[in-house]
């Protein structure tokens, strides 16, 4: 009986570690250290597409810092950055990719697993 529950716990830990590792790889930094990048991914997963200025407002990061985070997320294929030309000048639009949605789903599964493991 005890062996069986140990096995279940080990499997749960393994799956947790796997999710953590994949999310960390996708974000290009350990999950425990990532705040801005994860918030960007979550916001984009909810809204699918946001402008650079919207992300500046909600993350409260500086332009340089946000560009740096976005560049890393784009490098990992989590987001797509596009410049859209409007009447009042060019606008940077950031869109989540399928890989980005996968990262969000990993985050969501992690949350559920952690809540259930309590």
């Amino acid at each position: 009986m005890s062996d069986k529950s140990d096995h279940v716990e080990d499997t749960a830990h393994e799956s947790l570690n796997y999710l953590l590792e994949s999310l960390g790889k996708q974000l290009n930094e350990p999950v425990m250290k990532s705040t801005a990048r994860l918030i960007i991914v979550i916001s984009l997963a909810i809204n699918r597409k946001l402008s650079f200025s919207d992300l500046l407002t909600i993350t409260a990061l500086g332009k340089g810092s946000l560009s740096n985070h976005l560049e890393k997320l784009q490098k990992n294929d989590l987001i797509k950055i596009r410049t859209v030309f409007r009447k009042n000048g060019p606008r940077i639009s950031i869109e989540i990719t399928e890989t980005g949605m996968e990262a969000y789903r990993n985050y969501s599964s992690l949350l559920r697993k952690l809540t259930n493991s309590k």
Partner: protein
Amino acid sequence: MNRDEIQALSEHLKCLGTKAVRLDRYLQRRAWGVYYSIWAVSILLFTFLSYPISLIRGAYLQLAAYVIAYVLIVLFASYFSGLVFSKARRLANLESDLSDHQDRNIKKKCGIGTLVLAVLIVAIIIIGSDLLRTAIGVLLEVIILALIDLYVYRMLGKSLGKIPFEGLMAVSVFMFSDVGSAATVFIYRSPEYFGYLWIPTIFAWFIASIYSIYHARDELVVQIDSQECN
């Protein structure tokens, strides 16, 4: 990972999610602002477009103009409503993941947008046809529009948590116009005054739109005191 590490990770991820939800309310409130204005214009067109269309000569041409104009309005307004509602649903799903009482049925419960679109089309057919001259037609119209209003109220709650002033105003005035316009049909036995009772809704939704967009930034003030998640 030991129990403490799991606990720390759980708190970190929850904190991030909660912060993202709070920040997202700014975008959601702004989107609701655009939603109110799109429906204010649509209600204005629904109600008063029939007058210029009735001036077109030829029954078939009039019917074609009526169908094309109303279908285009419904499609445009519904497409935008779908965008707002799906964002609200995704936010509600995240909130459910963050809560200890996870509600796996949210997706199912909120995913009745297609049904709402279908009943909306039925409501428009009733309003635009002779059915509005019958008691059953009027009752159907009141019920359908009231259900849509309740759905909007529910989605407002899902996406903004506490429904702001302009949301309550928009939903209440809509209900007033719905019941009031139907009452005029019963009282005067003619749909002649039906449109006038929708004027308060058109105004209220325009005001709600401006108020919502202007006050969307209030949602960001909440985050100043929020935890940093580090």
